[in-house]
């Protein structure tokens, strides 16, 4: 094996903010007052929040040190399955930081924000084109918010037809947000099992789909990294009973330029711009979760809608009486939308298709190179990710968690673990297209080495990681007596 990526360096300790402050310091350049003082009535005035007083240097050192305890895509390979941790182009940050975009007020008269509206109208069109859907709303703030939007659209559609339904079919491979979003609209999830091939069988759906069921919520490609080959037939079954098909499009990175969700029979779909469209994950967000629909569901999309007048001017319209309403105070996570727009313009149609092809190539390469080392849950050509398990390592009493933790010592972010739930001890790996062959090879070597360690020196895995800022943390004790503020 070549020299491993992980090395030990100098890690600096850093206190909590309020352990550092000294009263009388300041890290802010206070503007001078040019108006007289105007005190508020005393009974309204409080003591002010107990924030520590720090100097500018205190603040800079604090966060710089903290940042070195973190691992991001810019640090290295981050194969966190289902999260599409692809490289986040720096140009996106530049564009979102332009003063017009970052300073524009959402309540200005339309004539003063044409550029922002044009950007959003274009992006809606691009996303409709990429998915094969007819209309898009950019308002949802994240994937789960897009799911909520989509379920509300379905709910509103049935309500209009005077035909309210109580259930929704959700496969056992679904992300937890799917059932939780459906429940917010009052739907009772009906769980169905994924077939032996790792995808849904039409018979399974036919057996449960009835006129009490609003439809199905299905992730395609699914969370096993497999394309739902029978989705077209499944859509027909659902439609025949008057239901609608919701597709969780969080994994669209596998099929841009290849699959047509509209043709498959999908009625509503959400995208995760923070996955497929390269906007940074920000340590947990913000993302954006646009919701895309077929023509007949367009009247239900969130308001305001962006419309183009005959004059060519863009406007915001509330005139959609069947709309589900508003999901966010303003127009969505505009700053995230600018980044996704910048990405699509940088890539073009060919570039996006190529990205999907290489994402799938990378995942299949990883799968082939590792399937003798780790148990592969479904040995079939995969899409953007592949799911292994710890079955081969169990005889050494080594678990998925141990493998994940050991990867950190070697300089990698671990894959997603213990999800999807249908694979016991899942190790879900999504390399994405922005990883080179050399980097994948080094990661593969590392995992093979870890498999040898599992056999020969299992304690090394069980006590990993040893090179991070902290060793394994006691999450059970933390939850038993939560300390959530200092």
């Amino acid at each position, binding site marked *: 094996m070549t020299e491993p990526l992980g090395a030990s360096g100098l890690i600096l300790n850093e206190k*909590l*903010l309020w352990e550092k402050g000294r*009263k009388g310091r300041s*890290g*802010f350049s206070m503007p001078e007052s040019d108006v007289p*003082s105007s005190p*508020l009535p005393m009974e*309204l005035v*409080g003591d002010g*929040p107990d*924030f*520590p007083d*720090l100097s*500018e240097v205190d*603040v800079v050192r604090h966060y710089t040190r903290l940042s070195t305890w973190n691992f*991001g*895509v810019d*640090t290295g390979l981050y194969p966190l399955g289902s999260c599409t941790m692809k490289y986040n182009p720096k140009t996106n940050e530049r*564009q979102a930081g332009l*003063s017009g975009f*970052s300073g524009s007020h959402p*309540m*200005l008269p339309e004539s*003063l924000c044409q*550029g922002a509206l044009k950007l959003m109208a274009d992006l809606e069109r691009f996303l409709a*084109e990429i998915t094969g859907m007819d209309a898009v709303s950019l308002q949802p*703030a*994240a994937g789960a918010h897009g799911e*909520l939007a989509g379920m509300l659209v379905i709910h509103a559609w049935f309500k209009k037809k005077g035909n309210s339904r109580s259930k929704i079919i959700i496969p056992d491979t679904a*992300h937890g947000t799917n059932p939780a979003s459906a*429940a917010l*609209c009052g739907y009772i999830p009906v769980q169905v099992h994924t077939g032996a091939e790792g995808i849904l069988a039409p018979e399974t759906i036919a057996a449960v789909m009835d006129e009490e069921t609003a439809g199905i919520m299905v992730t395609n490609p699914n969370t096993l990294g497999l394309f739902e080959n029978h989705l077209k037939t499944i859509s027909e079954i659902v439609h025949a009973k008057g239901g609608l098909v919701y597709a969780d499009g969080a994994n669209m990175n596998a099929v841009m330029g290849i*699959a047509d969700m509209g043709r498959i029979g999908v009625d509503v779909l959400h995208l995760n711009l923070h996955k497929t469209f390269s906007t940074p994950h*920000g340590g*947990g*967000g*913000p993302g954006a979760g646009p919701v895309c629909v077929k023509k007949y569901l367009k009247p239900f999309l969130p308001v305001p809608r962006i419309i183009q007048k005959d004059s060519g001017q863009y406007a915001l319209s509330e005139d959609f009486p069947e709309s589900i309403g508003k*999901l966010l*105070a303003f127009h969505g996570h505009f700053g995230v939308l600018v980044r996704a727009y910048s990405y699509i313009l940088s*890539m*073009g149609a060919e570039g996006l*298709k190529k*990205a999907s092809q290489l994402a799938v*190539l990378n995942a*299949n390469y990883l799968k082939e190179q590792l399937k003798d080392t780790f148990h592969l849950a479904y040995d079939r050509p995969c899409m953007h990710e592949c799911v292994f398990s710890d079955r081969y390592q169990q005889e050494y009493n080594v678990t998925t968690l141990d493998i994940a933790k050991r990867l*950190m010592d070697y300089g990698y*972010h671990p894959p997603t673990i213990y999800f999807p739930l249908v694979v016991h001890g899942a190790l879900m790996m999504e390399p994405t*297209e*922005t990883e*080179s*062959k050399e980097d994948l090879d080094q990661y593969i070597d590392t995992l093979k080495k870890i498999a040898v360690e599992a056999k020969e020196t299992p304690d090394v895995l069980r*006590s990993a990681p040893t090179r*991070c800022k902290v*060793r*394994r*943390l006691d*999450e059970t*004790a933390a939850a038993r007596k*939560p300390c*959530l503020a200092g």
Partner: protein
Amino acid sequence: MRFLPHTPEQIQLMLMVVGADSLESLFSSIPEECRRLQDMNLPDALSEWALNRYMDALSASLAVSPDYKIFIGAGRYDHYIPATVSALKSRSEFLTAYTPYQPEISQGTLQAIYEYQTLAARLMGVDVVTASHYDGATALSESLLMAIRKTRRKRVAISSLIHPFYRRVLQTYLEPAGFEILDLPFLENGLTDLSLLEGTTDIAAVALQSPNFFGCIEELKTASKKAHEMGALFVAGFTEALAYGLLKSPGSQGADIVFGEGQSLGIPISFGGPGLGMLGCTSEHTRNLPGRLVGKAKDLDGKNGFVLTLATREQHIRREKATSNICSNNSHCALTAAMYMASLGKSGFCNLAKLNHDKAAYLCRQFSDAGFRIPFSSPFFNEFVVEFPKGFETRYQSLLEKKIVAGLPLSTFYSKLANHYLFCVTETVSRKDMDALIQEVKS
């Protein structure tokens, strides 16, 4: 394409390993009926430099201060952002990481969010604050869903002086599940009228915003007492977090749950998003909170560290029985807010709040001295309402041409308030700009 590292030779080698002839054939298992019939119709790819030119032009077409003098707040506030905050938040170790599921390799995010939770709890006067929500409006909605779960009652009472857009979002969240909203009107002094609450017993929560949409400071303590007498929870919140550099915190006035928008805390306005949904409560309700929480933990050697905790409330464990569907949140905005609060410190934060109030009070007095009516007499923070004589609309339009946005017309939100405009002033507005505005409006 510069983001795609594969050389043609490497692609061939890799295809051999996976047993495929071509990149296309990787998808051969996808049935014909699921495929696109045509290539995607998108604009041709732009070079980095062509993209810059295009985006520069698009961005330049937008009206922003200081070129424009914009006297609008209404949920998004123009505050100075220190260069340190912009630089530190851009560190890619923070920016390009995801949710800290693996704590040992994410201690930077985790400590920073723990510190955010702490500073935010001090600001809001509560015991616990979540790691973030999407915005103030979804934080309000989640607060009321919490109260509905807790009290098992199906109706909530909402001040009509909560931001009108927040109330619309709330409606979207509550109505499909069959929950009801009782709107509390407002009084002549610009505060919420609580009299509709008399005699009601089935209310899960009473919710107020302070400073409210008109900028007026609500009497939270009175409302809290009323809510608690009815067995309801008291929910209080804000759109302008800076107000609490000056005002008594909502928690200290008896709020059980506090929601808010934290955009003022160092986050660019960015056409309204992303912002920062702040949501906190007293410790009694912790396990009912939606969204992520960071807690303290010890490692194997007894060293202090941080983890995501109380996950059994969340969708990835509880699925449809979770306290919310939220997964990705606005963590990076919470990080930014923490950097901002740390940069200002208590002294800076209080002084800045005072400066904001002084400026807004100055402009309000100038309007009043110039003979315009200030319809609501209650004390306010940063924002206030002015009533203009009939026909001001034309003047408003002509001021736009002079790059002045003279407040936000309120009649779209409150049909009775024709010719009423909501004005906002922050530290970024100079006396000169305010005097110029008065001259223009008077003439």
